[in-house]
């Protein structure tokens, strides 16, 4: 019989309780059990970064975690970023700087940069590129994403919200 557990996870501030198979990855739990499909699956081996979420505020590959490991933890996904549909500073910077094309890698990029800009509010271009090196994009050549990160950093330093 399948090995199952009941877990209680707080996702984007909202508590969820579910009984799941213990082998289910966190990203499949988010996407297919909770229908939070903003977090994407790109490789399932921890390289592409499309599934990046924050676990207790720290970025992680959701394809390399089991959902059961998030019992009583806080998970933050891309769906948390906008408020009442209004894009936050980073999201808006992505639109303003053409930081996305097909949009598939975008949620992972946003979560990586959410953590990065929180820890490093005034990064250099090289630091931004290094921070992004764990997220693959095949469309943009990264230039728009780098520009968006720098633009968002500037606006956040100036107090934008």
């Amino acid at each position, binding site marked *: 019989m399948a090995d199952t557990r009941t877990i209680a996870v707080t996702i984007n501030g909202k508590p969820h309780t579910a009984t799941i*198979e213990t*082998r*289910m990855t966190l990203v499949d739990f988010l*996407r*297919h059990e909770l*229908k*939070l*499909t*903003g*977090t*994407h*699956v*790109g*490789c*399932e*081996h921890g*390289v*592409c970064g*499309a599934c990046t979420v924050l676990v207790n505020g720290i970025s992680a590959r959701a394809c390399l975690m089991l959902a059961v490991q998030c019992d009583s933890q806080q998970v933050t*996904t*891309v*769906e948390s*970023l*906008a408020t009442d*549909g209004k*894009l936050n500073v980073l*999201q808006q910077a*992505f*639109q*303003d700087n*053409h930081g*996305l*094309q*097909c*949009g*598939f*890698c*975008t*949620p992972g990029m*946003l979560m990586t940069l959410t953590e990065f800009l929180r820890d490093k509010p005034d990064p250099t*271009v090289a630091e*931004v*590129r*290094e921070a*992004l*090196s764990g*997220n*693959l*994009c*095949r*469309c*943009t*050549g*990264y*230039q*728009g*994403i*780098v520009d968006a990160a720098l633009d968002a950093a500037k606006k956040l330093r100036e107090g934008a919200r």
Partner: protein
Amino acid sequence: MKSGAEKLTGFGASVKRKEDPAFLRGEGQFIDDIHLPEMLHAAFVRSPYAHAKVGAIDKTAALALPGVHAVITYADLPEEIRRQTMPLLVPHPAIKQALLPYALAKDETCYAGEPVVCVIADSRYIAEDATQLVEVDYEPLPAVNDCRAVIEDGAPLAHAGAESNIAARFPVKVGDADRAFTGAAHVFREKIYQHRGGPFFMECRGAIAQYDAQSQGYTLHVSSQGSHRLKRCMLDMFELGDHQMRVIAPDVGGGFGPKGSFYPEYINVAVAARLLRRPVKWIEDRRENFLTTHQERDQYWDMEIAVDADAKIIGVRGQLIHETGAYVPWGIVLPWITATTVPGPYVVPHFKLDVISVFTNKIQTTPVRGAGRPEAVTTMERLMDRVARELKLDRAEVRRRNFVQPEQMPYKVGIIFRDGRPVTYDSGDYPASQAAALKTADYDGFAKRQAAARKQGRYLGIGLANAVEATGLGPYESATVRVATSGRIVIYTGATPQGQSHKTTLAQIASDQLGVDFNDITVVTADTATTALGIGSFAARTAVNAGSSVHVAAMEVAAKAKKIAAGMMECVEDDLELADGYVRLKSAPDVKKSLREIAVKSIGMPGFSMAGGLPPGLEHTAHFTPDQAVYSSGTHVAEVEVDIETGEVNIVRYTVAHDCGRVINPMVVEGQVIGGVAHGVGNALYEQLAFDENAQPLSTNFGEYLLPMATDVPHVDLVHLETPSPLNPLGIKGAGEGGTISAIGAILGAVEHALEPFGVHIAEAPISPQRIVALLGEHARGRTK
């Protein structure tokens, strides 16, 4: 005509994309985001061998696993699916053996990963468990890997029972190359190996099939580049009526060519949905993606160039061995595009290429971003660099002497393109393109930079590459512009975006004609239920085809709106204009009728005659059919630093001059070009699909297959040139692939230039640090010598 305010958002404006907010909020709807009630999940048993006979299949254990609903083999497929192989998408008389696979292997598998059994279960987890329980008797057969070796006598056959390993062979000719070569001042020979890896879009493929017992028809959601062509393939395979198949592409997470192909999994999910009367989803995982999504791998070139004493080209000739892989779904499209792209922006009076397309036991090759053009351009630019080196001329100067001049437009190259038309460049200014790129790259200042670096023991090089790219291929793309009776405007098109921003750019085009903001126009793409005909988005064709169709359709709708309004307002059409959602009197803007009122009028009233009036509906459908391809062009300049001790290449500066005619949205075009450069960087330096001698794929994850990361791709300086095309109403040309096409040639040239002091010659792509060190020999010991 547009009013002042609309100029900010119509054709030519860098408006922000309509697509973005949903994607940024995580509200995009990609194929795996779709959840249907009662949906089941598919996984495939795939051949572990590159070539094998398939014997008995025992599915007992798999069927016994709780949660498994079906285990489907070739023998279980419906008769019409067993009877037919997958379709040949583009037939051509040069194809000697049109070998194509069945939906599931019948008795032979010809590449590792070929689907043999389809398992349907409650979840993907259980489906994968079940695939491990299916027992298949395989008898391994000799597999062929190297596409040069397989055409030799006695080589094993990629397909048991085939007459040879040659899929197609054809000549491409201009003038009389052999005669021209006799007596040429200089003839140089280059043998070049090129490998382009695969598309590696971030979203893998996937499909969901639903069966409707009442109509005996299907709805198929597919992550695809063209719903309509896919529908046609499905109708042909299942032998159905037009009403029995609806194909919809949801948001598509990158395509780059291979998502435009037709794959066996799509047939299987439809078969399973009919069998089980439940929706069936299959999502390709990344391992399957490495094994089964089409790639664009090996080409071996053996080429000669003849020039006169002034380095002017007399002729180019040689042989191209092109690997088609296990099957030929696209016929000879890929090698044909390659062959016809070779002359590029240069006057090549005599040209002869013997093209051989050969089978191997590897996943088939079909167009990937650039579609054979990058290889052609790399080859030609390697030849140009060779001429410059041998004749001790500046590399830019050699190119300058050979350019087709703007006053020669339209210029007939003398060969036939894949659209069946003679290759005729419609417009372009190639000398200006190169000059602009060199200026922005500070080509003239390079020698100084190089000398300064050498003093510190650092090796800089600069390289350049020019290309002309056939874009905007026909036959057409559909566009319907419709004003609903609510006044809301929608565009339906067969174009199928994967990041190219069609929902923004097509709205921009229509907004100019309809006098509304582009945000007031909704663009609905890639649903065969909304528009009868369509082709899809590939080959940098959508802006030209769909863009022109939208333009024509919107113009017709505007004219019709004026006609109806003139009747309503009792004035003449010439006195009217469209602005802000109204048709109004030019002389008295307050006298106006809204598009909503006009749309209501246009559909008539039940019981009242419309006889003698306009055709009903405030709408128009157009299918712009271009006469021939339109030719974009560009120049890339790469400046690199090579670490001679490790062989590492670092791109320190990168410049692109790009001419895609009139630009709908400069921001979007820049994004397309820069993204294309990144793909070219991968092809030049990183991306290699390794196979062992039995054609077993070795690169099956992102740790071994190296996609360029943010730390590998340079900042790109971009110069826009605009030579409008005379061949479509908007003067536009395609932009989706130009970034990739010239990148490899420019980067290889730069690496070779950096290593000039050591006499290193680069004749392969990708070029790896290991290979650079090998070519450097003792020199690579550098400071440790």
